[in-house]
């Protein structure tokens, strides 16, 4: 049961049209090395699930890998502005947005994690989202006869989560905010961890109370230092301002490719032994 594998191998197992839950939040701890490898392997038709996405969703829209986005919010943060490639993809009809209320993504993942077809949601009471989206439905509560809104379960085929520390069994430690990553690891059919550091089982056991994702839930572990760049990874590195501004200025297919390829050395570094474990 060897779980340690290469980025290429892990990504090669992702099927076109797969539903992927991406860890992190906006510009923080997004699994960018994995996302770039999805682009390199020219995956297509992906359905992306996240409460609040940014560069990850924008990049995959830029290379035309996406068919559907289930999210509550897709945008860079204040100083970087709106996600140009995502917007263009939606506005030209190439990508369908299932607009959620962030919480309804959480509810839909909770439904998946408990294997029920839907989750009742308080709060989603008014507005056009309920009518326009077929993953919401209002029914009568059989106990009180009051109306209640349900959101349909979303079962990701794979959750991809970038962490600071993981052992070879897949026991994973997330330092700082966990966002929806723990829930995603329970909702998805398979879990792939990309990690800054692969630590010994002994060291992991010493900090077992910090383990967010126990190894037996994890299918594959990929060692990718700097694997969240250009988004931030707490206690490892901050957002790469220059790279983000560069990406946001790109327009042509060839430019996206060059940008993504410029990370090759970094993304494959650990496999080639260039970076010490």
């Amino acid at each position, binding site marked *: 049961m060897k779980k340690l594998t290469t980025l290429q191998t892990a990504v090669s197992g992702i099927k076109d049209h797969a539903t992927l839950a991406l860890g992190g*939040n906006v510009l923080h701890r997004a699994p960018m090395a994995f996302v770039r490898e999805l682009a390199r392997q020219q995956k297509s038709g992906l359905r992306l699930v996240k409460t609040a996405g940014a560069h990850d969703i924008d990049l995959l829209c830029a290379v035309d890998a996406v068919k559907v986005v289930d999210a509550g919010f897709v945008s860079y943060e204040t100083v970087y502005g709106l996600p140009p490639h995502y917007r263009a993809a939606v*506005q030209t009809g190439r990508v369908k947005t299932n607009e959620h209320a962030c919480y309804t993504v959480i509810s839909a993942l909770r439904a998946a994690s408990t294997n029920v077809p839907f989750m009742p949601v308080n709060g989603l009471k008014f507005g056009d989202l309920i009518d326009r989206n077929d993953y919401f439905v209002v029914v009568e509560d059989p106990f009180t006869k009051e109306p209640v809104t349900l959101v349909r379960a979303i079962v990701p085929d794979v959750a991809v989560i970038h962490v600071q520390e993981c052992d070879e069994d897949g026991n994973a430690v997330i330092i700082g*905010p966990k966002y929806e990553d723990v829930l995603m690891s329970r909702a998805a059919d398979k879990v792939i961890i990309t990690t800054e550091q692969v630590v010994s089982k002994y060291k992991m056991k010493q900090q077992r109370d910090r383990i967010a994702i126990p190894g037996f839930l994890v299918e594959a572990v990929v060692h990718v230092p700097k694997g969240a760049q250009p988004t931030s990874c707490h206690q490892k590195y901050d957002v790469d301002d220059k790279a983000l501004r560069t990406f946001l200025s790109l327009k042509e297919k060839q430019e996206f490719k060059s940008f993504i390829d410029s990370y090759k050395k970094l993304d494959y570094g650990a496999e080639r032994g260039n970076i010490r474990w």
Partner: protein
Amino acid sequence: MVNNYRISDLMTCTIADMLEDGETVFHGVSSQMPMVAMHLARHSHAPNLVHLNIPGGVNPESIKKASYSSAGADLVEAGESNFGLDEIFDLSMRGKLDVAFLGGVQFDRHGNINASVIGDYDKPKVRLPGGAGSAVLIPTAKKAIIWRTKHDPRTFLEKVDFVTTRGNLWKIITPLCVFVFQNGQLELDTIHPHTTIEEVQKQTGFPLVYDEVRYTKSPTRKQLQILQRIDPDDFRSAEM
């Protein structure tokens, strides 16, 4: 009365004044101004305000490192306990979130909020970032406060293109004025000292509703001093 303040200072202090001691208050991503306002409140009249945020750091002691983000790990590192986004939503569903700060792109006189699309939902002219938590928080938080750094007739208009949500909207603050949602409509609460009622009307796409023109209170010297101390890098102006 002092005059050496900017619109961002005025807005931040006005927001702080809306918050009461002991309230549980949430802000989302790209929300530097409310974040600073919450800290101002905690450092003045509301020391027991509970500050909640997306990364989950309860009552972060300092926001000086929050820089470009208001969803970063610094808020957790400086926090006194952890309470993640999923839990904050649950809290609001239970009716125990007092105030939520939210955004939006279009607002109409009936209190409808659009953060989704300009044009048709399925084939939009402009795809907006989305309402994030708005669609569940505005109906469930006891008071929803919207802040906008833009005030023009395309933002405040007769009818929004799409109703992302409505509900317990309480106040909207802009660079020109404060609206209050009452009697089923968006009414003018106060206009800022530097503007006129004509200017506000000109920039608003529906007729203003008000009995008399009241002015927003200017920041006090003490508030400006605290702002200087807690937000020396001026994150509160990031959106201006």
